[in-house]
């Protein structure tokens, strides 16, 4: 809470100091919240074991992803930028209570008015994916997760362990990292929103990790056969990217 206040204080101070003009409207605040689930159960790192396909089970250590060019859409087709890039990480979600709160992005100073939806790119947009941490002063979302061998950022990281034989042990080590310009994709979410000056609005997104790993039936990542991919095998990384696109939803 203190951190948040300090941040808001600093940013509103900067904003006003830059203009030396306190007559401008302050705009509204939009909180974009992301909750992770696994087959609808709260997504908690380490602690929880989640039943998976074919009698297997999964535990997580890391789930994170980048979003780029997040914009609010207006009726006339124009848009208002909210952020050029954000890293959403569930790494520190260690309890069901933390999972229920999710991860929140704060945007402020948004012009009041009527909006029809929100658009975001899943991954790091190509113009930013051609940069590297050397372009940034930390802390910045793009100061990490750069894979120099492929000159780009890792868009999605899923790391954890699997019980492949149903015996309650989790020896299989899972590391799935995806990211490349050709799997960057924008998704639009329709929602009518009335933003008022000085008011706050919350948007709640959900990402169900099971849907990212499995389409159900016989179409799932089979951890008995494959435990890692670092954007090497197109049939794996496009599977993850497509599923992620479908699974990200706005309540």
């Amino acid at each position, binding site marked *: 809470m203190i951190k*948040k206040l300090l941040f808001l204080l600093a940013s509103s101070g900067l904003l006003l100091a830059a203009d030396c003009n306190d007559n401008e409207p302050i705009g509204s605040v939009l909180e974009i919240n992301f909750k992770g689930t696994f087959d609808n159960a709260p997504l908690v790192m380490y602690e929880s074991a989640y039943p998976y396909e074919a009698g297997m089970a999964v535990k997580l250590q890391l789930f994170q992803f980048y979003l780029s060019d997040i914009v609010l859409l207006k009726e006339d087709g124009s848009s208002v930028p909210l952020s*050029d890039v954000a890293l959403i*990480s569930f790494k520190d979600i260690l309890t069901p209570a933390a999972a229920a709160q999710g991860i929140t992005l704060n945007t402020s100073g948004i012009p009041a008015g009527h909006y029809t939806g929100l658009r975001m790119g899943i991954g790091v947009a190509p113009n930013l994916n051609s940069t590297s941490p050397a372009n940034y002063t930390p802390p910045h979302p793009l100061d990490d997760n750069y894979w*120099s061998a492929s000159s780009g950022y890792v868009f999605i990281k899923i790391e954890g362990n699997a019980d492949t034989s149903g015996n309650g042990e989790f020896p299989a080590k899972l590391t799935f990292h995806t990211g490349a310009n050709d799997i960057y994709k924008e998704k639009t979410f329709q929602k009518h929103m009335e933003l008022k000056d*000085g008011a706050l609005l919350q948007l709640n997104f959900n990402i169900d990790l099971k849907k990212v790993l499995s389409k159900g039936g016989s179409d799932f990542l089979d951890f008995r056969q494959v435990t890692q991919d670092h954007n090497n095998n197109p049939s794996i990384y496009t599977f993850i990217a497509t599923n992620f696109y479908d699974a990200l939803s706005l309540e």
Partner: protein
Amino acid sequence: MRFLWNKQAFRLFAQNAFNRKLLSVCAGLFFCFCAALFMVSATCSSDAPEKGAWSATPYPLKEPEHFVKMLMPSDNPLTVEGVDLGRQLFFDPLLSMNGAISCASCHLPQNAFSDGKAFSIGVNGQQGPRSSMALANVGYYYKGLFWDGRSKSLEDQALIPVREPHEMNSDWSMVELKLRNHPKYPELFYKAFGIAEPKEITRFLAAKAIAQFERTLISANAKYDQVLAGKATFTEAEARGRMIFFDASDELPKSECGHCHVDPLFTNLDFFNNGIQQVSSLEDFPDKGRGKITKIKYDNGKFRVPTLRNIELTAPYMHDGRFKTLDEVLEHYISGGHSAENLNPNVRQLNFTGRDKSDLIAFLKTLTDTSFIHNPAFKNPFTE
């Protein structure tokens, strides 16, 4: 398309789950707005303060272009005079109880500012619980210093060794007295910070000066960097080792090293259990590392990823110096590590031949930066 710092200040930042209730946010906003108004009335009408006679020279820090930018605290800008004072303090055993141990006793330039011991030895031969850390590029480590990340900044860290019983075993009031009554230091503190009288010498100014010196300890001129800059070429073994290190070829075995030892710093500054310790439960780590600080069970046995720059010079390895050679380190990683609930899944059995191993080590040795360890600006000023 950069919106992050534009005038409308659409600020967006990722953060952990705070307890956010609508009410408190509204109250917070109101508070912020009032405070901001106050700040504006202060900034908009302020006249420049009068300048005194003292001034220090900005230090021309050469930041390597292929590195992330160094985060500089606004209240401790680098100055030539500050860095010089910091260097003197760093090498001065005056900081210790018995006048025998300086920072440099455990952070030696020739060892890339580590000490070559499994456990560091402090005043009166007392052994500490952990291995010393190399200080190359320490100015970039903004996610917490020490193996467990318990110190937030170099300014904060520099206060600690003086009072640690197994390090310098002194106390700062004593050190402040010695510095104030010293024939040389009052002048140096004046030059660095413009103090009016010796009694204004404090531990905090000393720590600031040491931190300034440490920020200049940049190592970015190893063979690896020269190859990147097109000024040198890898041998065949080094080039093959590089491909293995970064998992860059489907024909070669993967090493997974690059997930954690991310270039160009060769650390991502994060904390992991890399599987060196066999334990039957997460409570059993002899040194809980990160978990001792966060009190989170799953952080037990996690340590900050150390840099691999100058790794050839900083044996023995790991927080407890358990491995004497890089060969032993690689044997550990090849085995896949000891399992534990929080063993990082990027540490997995490797399918290595003897040649893969020796090529990877050849690559690691291209991270040795001799111009760094021989840099005259980093040498002991008392033995020049």
